[in-house]
């Protein structure tokens, strides 16, 4: 696959540089972390060789393997730049049941037992009478077998029966598989035959394939290697299913007018529709427009946003419609509330939804500002960072927006990364920017922030620009002093030329400041 290949190359690049956010973004596209590049380097090896401690931790958390009994793992440990990285690697090495957690997968797993907002709306039971509480939407998304059963069943039905020949561990295996809880190490050889049989029946082909392969293996190292591989496959499989499901959510949106309230029959028809929602999300077409779209959504997914989590866990008006049945699951026969989305733009809303449902992080630059605004309001910090990364990655963005717009955004949403990006951009083309009136404005704003922040005597923006000027010509502060010495040599060196250009750039900035009568 070309695209993954490209992504992997990019991942390796960021691993060398040590950019945590970019790596996180790429992992969300489903890159196999345990792959090797053309020089046989794994991302983990690159990160530990280059001494990026945060990055090593992130890679391990996301499922990179460091097994010192194998060549790749041993190489990581020997290659580690610092002792503290080596210790991190050695500590992680011990865990056998590697938990390959993408953030969306971790969230799904937490929903299996989390009774915080009591959103389970289905009981799955086997013939022996064992029961487990689950979410209908996840069954719809992840199992065609259950999906068809659910669709033929009414809202007032609360339970689903398993086929007769499912072994006692079946219920546990199904729920863990659906919610992406690592389960492979928990299936004993004794059970694996029976489990494999009903997996095929339910359409859990990946799990069935694993059990078949594992039954031929004896070596524990081989088996855990296989487990890691399949656990990764399950996550990616689930991501695809959730992606499809999110697409269904979007497809099922309805245009409504709120002038006279939303007719209940619209909501009712959506409630029994193909996504079986337990909350409706309303997005206005435009600001103060009376029209907008309603999306059939799911509280247990929306709670990935801190905003919705608090909303649904609290006891404000939004939660008053929900009821529990006698069996302790959500009563689906009542009306579900409509909550509104803070940005009046469907595209943004859909991007946010796709992040929440399956961790989509490749934000098109056109929507970046809106996504940023929305994720700030909804308190989704990770998406905020990812979007900032998208802005810095995009060259088109600056064709449409000025760098000062970006600066506004950076200040408004407290994104240091963007502030640096702006400073770097300005430094790269300082002759142009010093002529811009917005530049003066920006410097003034930056210095006015200083009074409220009371940190140091400098203007942050100017400081950052100076720093990136040095970086631009690859100059150390010490170099400047040395060069002064051989100025009389008359010898033309590349460094000297750089220093010279640097100085003229620097002087431009100084002139501007002087002109503005700002003391730095």
């Amino acid at each position, binding site marked *: 696959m070309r695209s993954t290949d490209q992504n992997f190359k990019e991942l390796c690049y960021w691993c060398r540089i040590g950019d945590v956010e970019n790596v996180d973004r790429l992992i969300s596209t489903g890159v196999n972390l345990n792959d090797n590049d053309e020089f046989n380097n794994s991302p983990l090896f690159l990160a530990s060789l280059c001494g990026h401690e945060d990055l090593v931790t992130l890679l391990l958390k996301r499922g990179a393997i460091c097994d010192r009994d194998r060549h790749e793992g041993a190489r990581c440990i020997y290659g580690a730049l610092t002792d503290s990285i080596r210790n991190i690697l050695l500590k992680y090495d011990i865990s056998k049941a590697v938990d390959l957690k993408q953030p969306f997968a971790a969230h799904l797993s937490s929903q299996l037992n989390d009774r915080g907002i009591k959103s389970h709306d289905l009981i799955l039971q086997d013939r022996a009478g064992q029961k487990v509480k689950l979410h209908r939407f996840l069954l719809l998304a992840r199992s065609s077998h259950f999906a068809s059963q659910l669709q033929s069943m009414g809202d007032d039905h609360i339970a689903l029966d398993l086929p007769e020949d499912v072994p006692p561990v079946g219920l546990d295996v199904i729920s863990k598989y659906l919610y992406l809880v690592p389960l492979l190490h928990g299936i004993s050889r004794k059970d694996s035959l029976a489990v494999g049989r009903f997996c095929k029946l339910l359409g859990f082909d990946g799990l069935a394939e694993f059990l078949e392969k594992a039954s031929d293996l004896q070596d524990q190292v081989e088996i855990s290697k296989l487990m890691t591989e399949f656990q990764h496959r399950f996550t990616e499989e689930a991501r695809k299913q959730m992606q499809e499901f999110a697409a269904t959510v979007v497809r099922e949106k309805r245009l409504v007018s709120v002038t006279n309230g939303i007719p209940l029959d619209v909501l009712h028809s959506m409630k029994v529709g193909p996504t079986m929602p337990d909350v409706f999300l309303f997005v206005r077409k435009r600001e103060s427009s009376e029209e907008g779209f309603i999306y059939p959504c799911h509280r247990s997914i929306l709670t990935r946003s801190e*905003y919705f989590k608090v*909303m649904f866990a609290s*006891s404000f*008006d*939004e939660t008053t419609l929900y009821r529990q049945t006698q069996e302790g699951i959500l009563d689906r026969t009542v009306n579900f*509330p409509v909550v*509104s989305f803070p940005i009046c733009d469907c595209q943004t809303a859909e991007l946010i939804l796709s992040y929440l449902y399956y961790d989509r992080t490749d934000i098109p630059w056109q929507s970046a500002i809106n996504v940023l605004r929305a994720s700030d309001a909804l308190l989704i910090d990770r998406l905020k960072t990812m979007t900032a990364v998208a802005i810095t990655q995009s060259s088109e963005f600056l064709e449409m927006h000025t760098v000062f717009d970006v600066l506004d955004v950076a200040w408004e949403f407290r994104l240091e990364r963007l502030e640096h990006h702006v400073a770097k951009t300005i430094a790269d083309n300082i002759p142009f920017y010093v002529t811009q009136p917005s530049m003066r404005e920006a410097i003034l704003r930056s210095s006015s922030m200083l009074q409220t922040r009371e940190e140091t005597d400098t203007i942050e923006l100017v400081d950052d620009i100076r720093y990136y000027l040095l970086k631009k010509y690859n100059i150390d502060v010490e170099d400047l002093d040395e060069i002064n010495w051989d100025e009389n040599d008359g010898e033309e060196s590349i460094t000297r030329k750089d220093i010279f250009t640097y100085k003229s750039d620097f002087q431009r900035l100084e002139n501007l400041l002087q002109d503005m009568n700002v003391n730095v």
Partner: protein
Amino acid sequence: MFKIQIRSPGGLGDKRAPSFGDSWEVLKNAMWMIYDGRVSELSFEVLFNVVYTLTLRKQGAELYEKIGRFFEEKLHELKISAFETSSTNVLSTLLQVWDKHCESLRLISDITMYLDKVYCKENRRQLIYDMGLEKFRDIILKASKGEVHSQMGKEINNARLGSETVDFQALKSLIAMMETLTDISDTYYLTEFEPSLLQDTRDFYRNFITNYTGEAISYPKEVQVLLDKEREVDAKFLNQDIMIKLSTVVEGILISDNIQFVTEQVVSELLRKDLHSDLRLMFSLSRAPQDKKRLWKQCSQYISGEGMSITGDLTLKKRTQAAVKWTSELIDMKKKYELVLRDIADDDSIDIKAVNEAFAVILSHNGKRNADFLATYLDSLLRSSAAEDLTKLQMEEAIAMFKLLRDKDVFEKLYLQQLSKRLLQQRSPIKLEKHLVNRMKEEVGGSFTLKPEGMFRDISVSQVNNTRFHQSYQVPYAYDMSVLTWTCWPFQQTSNEKQIILPAALEGLKLDYENYYMKTYSGRVLTWAYHLGSLDIGFQFKKSYHIITMPIYAAIIFMLFENHEELTTQDMSDLTNIPENELIRNLLTLAIAPKTRLLKKQPMSKKVLPSDKFRINHSFSSPTTKVKVLAVLSKSESETQATSNNDSPTAEILGERRQCVEAAIVRVLKRNQKLYSDQLFEKVRESVTSRFQLDPGTFHKSVDRLVEREYMQRDPDDSSFYHYLP
């Protein structure tokens, strides 16, 4: 048809957003409604949006201040309505207000979430929730602090007294509240309430102690009941940490602060009445190490007191009997307390220590006599014909006592004397003797057992020689020689033995043996110690035949009558050359001692004069065939023994000690070259401690003598500093 209304003010960054004043009105109303319990009428979306917009517009600081003032206002109002109008229990009112405030605060902080995350975090302000808690602490709790604390104290004391009406759930909630609230750098509970709680607890139990009227022996059980009760009460409303603190306080009051009563009355009484399970309880209740120490010390004191009250029964005529009685009583006592205290102690070492300390005290009191008694006890053990295992067991107990004895040299003196007698007279199994010596060696080291080991060697070498001698010479009599190395044996060397005239039969044997011995070991000198030997003589008296065992001198005298009918004392002296004192002693033995009167004396008086006449007493008879003639003690000897009865060691022992100390000083100083007086004393004390207790007086005298004899010298500048002189 029913319609659902959308209440969201249409998207963020609404350019027509209301003014700060209007927004604040919305929020303020919402917060009032939250306090009124009408949260379900409010929209989270709308309120969150208000806070969000204000924060984004950089009006966070103003909003934050306003919310703070709102809390103050609201809490003042709650205070007035709840505390000043209702007359019910202040505690339950407080809890009601607390619960309401917390619930409202939680909901308010839900809607101010964005303010918390953005404004508070950037400006390092407290979160809204924490600010609300602090306002509660200052406005409500601190205002009624005195009353709340005293009410809670009262409730808790009621619970301790067993009141049924105490509301533990309320107490528990109050404590939880205090632990939630922070104050200065810690929780309100720790900084404000706990000191008062601990003080109340202290007062309560101090009061109990001052009014304690029960018997001393029931104190442990009472304390146990109190502690259990306290724990039971505490468990109902306190967490583990606080419970432990309170328990420690209560134990401190009941045990540590009351330790004088506990040791002097309770422990002594329990020991006196043999209430060992209560004693064990007392020990397990006293968990502080210094208390335990005091308890052990008390036990030790009590035991030594009891031990010292066992006085040697001097009314018993025979000293041996008194010694045996005293020693076995002491051993029994030791066994008893070891059993009792080992049961109490949680580790094995300490029980021995307390008992040992006690017995060291007992034994050092009246030290010389005790050492004698112990030696005598061992002597009687070894002479007894009891089964070997039993004897070994008893020996073990005696050795345990011996270990604790300080004046071991006093013991050694008598022990060696008794040992030599036993060996020469073959009165004890040699195996047991060796066993005893080995055990002593294990306990106190080799120097102590050098002499006994020499003695054993002499005995066994002599046995070999005897056998060889019998093989190579025709000896008509059973004849055992013991060749003794005189340095090992506690006898004075005799010098004039050569002049003694032996009966012909003995003279022959003597010459033969000398002959034999010189052949075997050339270059050695044999000196005969007749006074240590004995001889068996068979004799037909008128009525019966007897085999008489008697000392050699007595035998020489007796055998004179083979050739003489009657002899005077002077005659005998001339015929035998026996020294006069020995002659008189043996004559007293043979003619005066009632059971062994083999000779008739003329005149019949208790004194032997040179002119007295003796002849064989043919009418002698005895119930047994074998008769043993025991040498009577001459008057001067019995006198020295009598005077040695007092406590201070004899002059002889003191002399030995002096030598020992001087040797030790020289040894130590030679090794160290120079030392301060106290260091020197310490090292010397250590090196002689296995023999006796060094007192500073002896030490200083020895030092003075050594300085005089120039073995060492004082430093010219510092008289307490000594140098070794090579």
